[in-house]
């Protein structure tokens, strides 16, 4: 990828970060907390995938590297999800 491609990704990341803050500044967190929660976390996930795919070049690496990363992510999510569910 050349510098132009990296720049496009950077602009998208910047806009998404701003959008997350705008969600709060617009009062959505107070008026519709779980909708705001979902929106903000989805934006974070998109940003994270963008950084991993393009800046860390996962898109061009063998799939096994992605599986390695997903392995750690799934382990962390399993711990968080199951632990939180256990006290609901």
């Amino acid at each position, binding site marked *: 990828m050349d510098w132009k491609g990296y720049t496009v990704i950077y602009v998208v990341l910047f806009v998404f970060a701003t959008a997350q803050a705008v969600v709060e500044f617009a009062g959505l967190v107070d008026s519709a907390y779980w909708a705001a929660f979902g929106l903000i976390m989805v934006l974070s996930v998109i940003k994270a995938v963008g950084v991993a795919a393009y800046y860390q070049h996962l898109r061009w690496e063998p799939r096994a590297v992605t599986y390695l990363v997903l392995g*750690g992510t799934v382990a962390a999510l399993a711990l968080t999800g199951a632990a939180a569910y256990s006290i609901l």
Partner: protein
Amino acid sequence: MSQEHEHGLPPKSSVSRWFLTTNHKDIGVLYLITALFFLVFGGVLALLFRLELISPGADLLGSMGYNQAVSTHGLLMVFWFISPFAFGFANYLVPLQIGADDLAFPRLNALSYWLYLFSGILMGVSFFQGTTFAGGWTMYAPLNTPAYIPGEGLGATSVVLALIMFTAAVTLGSVNFLTTMYRMRAEGLRMRDIPIFSLSINLTVWMMLFAFAALLAALMILASDHILGTTYFQYSIDGTTMATDADNPGASLLWAHLFWFFGHPEVYIVFFPALGVMAECFQTFTGRRLVGRKWFIISMVLVALQSFVVWMHHMFLTGINLPIKTIFMATTIGISLPFDLMVFSLIYTMAKGRVRFTTPFLFSLGALILFIIGGITGVFLGAIVLDYQFRGTYWVVAHFHYVMVAGATALFGGLYYWYPKITGKMYNETLGKIQFGVYFLGFNLLYFPMFIAWETPRRVFVYPDGLQIWHSMATVGGFILGASFLLMFYNLFVSLWRGEDVGPNPWEYATSAEWAVSSPPSLENFPGVPSYATGKLEFLDDETVAERTERTPGAAAHGHAATDGGTATDGGAVTARTAVTATAMETAHEVGGEDHASHASFWPFLVSLGGFIAFLGLSGVRTGSVFYLSIAAVGSLTMFGSLVGMTREPFHAPEMAIAERWPFSEVEKMKLGMWTFLASDIVLFGAFIGSYAFVRVAYGWTAWHHDLIPAEHVTMPGLINTYLLLTSSFLVVLAMVAAERESKRGTVAALVGTFALGVGFLINKGIEWNHLFHISTETFPNGWNLSTNIASSTFYLTTGLHGAHVIIGLIICAYMTVRAWNGAYQGDDRAIEYFGLYWHFVDIVWLFLFPLFYIL
């Protein structure tokens, strides 16, 4: 042998060799000896409290002495003995079995060992800091926090720090082994074909990579509670009784979740190498390939995966809900099924072969029998209703000793099995068999009465008088078991001088690659470049390697072979004729001039020594003692200086010219090492964020923000830091582009920009923290600091861990900027790319911390 031929290492007779070595076989030997020392350490503690238990009362050690002995016995045996003992074999044998000349990162391997040794020394020092940790090896909250530890509790803090150091060693080791096994297998050696011991180690390190990261998170949080005053695991004192703190209702359960998410895979981390040893010994001493080898491997893979979804069966008596208990009962009972298959595979291998009852086989068979008993009694504990009765009793103690010490039993078999390979001498077989008899008798006399006396409450020194006879028997058994080790040590020590010399393969049917080379093997391991391309082990000379490299640059041929227990096509029967497929000693020579580069390094020792001193200092800084503060500073400086020295030291460990590298053939070893480390770091941060989510759910997710966080904690500092980090990530990729284009000015400018933005991030954070520390409102009249409440603890510690990652990144960035200024990286951007992988990861973590801690 000259130092030049020994890769700059002094001879083995020199003490300095053992401080300088980075060779996997030397380090394997160091691990084995050190682990045996910790076996004796933990064993003596066990004998002390067994003596105490002859009668129900603390009349020998005293109550605190008993608690310390029991707790540290468990910690020493689980952490400092069993796994490191297995990894002594792994260090020595995995490169030999897969056809590599060493591990992928030899200095990192040495660093792992020294961190392990010094972590054990720190554990030992803790006994001299008043009292050591006395809250049980599971370190349940809140007994693991300073408020509930008698006296100053510095020894307990040292134990927590020692465990962190140990975990760091394990993580480095996991990264090293995985990179080695995926980048350095001999040509033609498919993953499924590597010898079963190495395969068991492969699965073990996968589990270690993720499980120990969760433990590291738990320990770092606990250390923070000890040293910095955060309140993750604290309960408040309600008058004279313990009470759940209304501000932190999840405290105790959080520890249990984090610990057992690590703790249950740890059972298999301990047992898998033992299974590998058992499988190797069963094959060799029955003359049969493992029956159902493919299914044996599939079963191990299933257990490795499933091990991460059974941990809550350790928590059936806590307040977790019934649906989750039911799910975890099902997964727990389910995990016994693949084990059944493995057990039957071993039994059937024995039934189909001709058994030779050598010492290694006796230990392996003994381990199998003990494991069957341990496994069956464990299923009882997986059933919720039975667990209500058995939890906290000696049933649990007996069960897990039948599992864990069964694993150790197999490993002792492994010690006899590979002793001739490691030393070039044969042990005394008769004495070995006698030792097995004494060991097996002592083991069962020690642990079986515990099943009968199961109503004895665990971890305490009082029990009903009627059970005294069983405890007396157990104590006698303990001393018999201990005495058996005297026989083993005598046998192995004397055999070093009096033992018969052995050739490459003293066992008739041993077939894995370590038996194809001399005993002990040469420093380079093999007399040429190993290859299985033709279906059997061959050693290639320089010319052949050069030809194949030209033909398929960077790739391996596609042949494959069974590497243990016979060939893939012989139906499982092994003959002595085919046992060792090649020796080829006459072709002994070096491959490539680079191999003569020095492999001696003193820095791993010094880094670990610095770490030890720094951690010892940290254990006492909360007292404000000048002594502890001083040594913390000295240790930190030593460690940092040594790390810089290690970075600047020329050390060349080239990639193999031809190797089997599926599924990472396109991923250079440094990059693979970095990705593997990052996978572990994902779990570390995941566990921190998971802890935050857990305590917030326990408190009440939406009430959290209103009750516990001041209005002064606003979004803007987080948003500014997001912009700073995103821009710094962008500059790192621009530095790569500039380096590719050989623009020195562009590379330096982009790296300087990255550094400046990182510093800006930290300054912004510092300003924000300073403001929050000093706010004075009606709800928070004394500021909002680390100890104010659970919300402040999670905020400062999680973002602090992230900040520490930023600082480490900045140090690397500064170093690379200087190098770029001097002309490095032009036309070769790989180093910047690897740094970028880390830096972007730090960025990604912030992308989640920002909304969780600043918006939601």
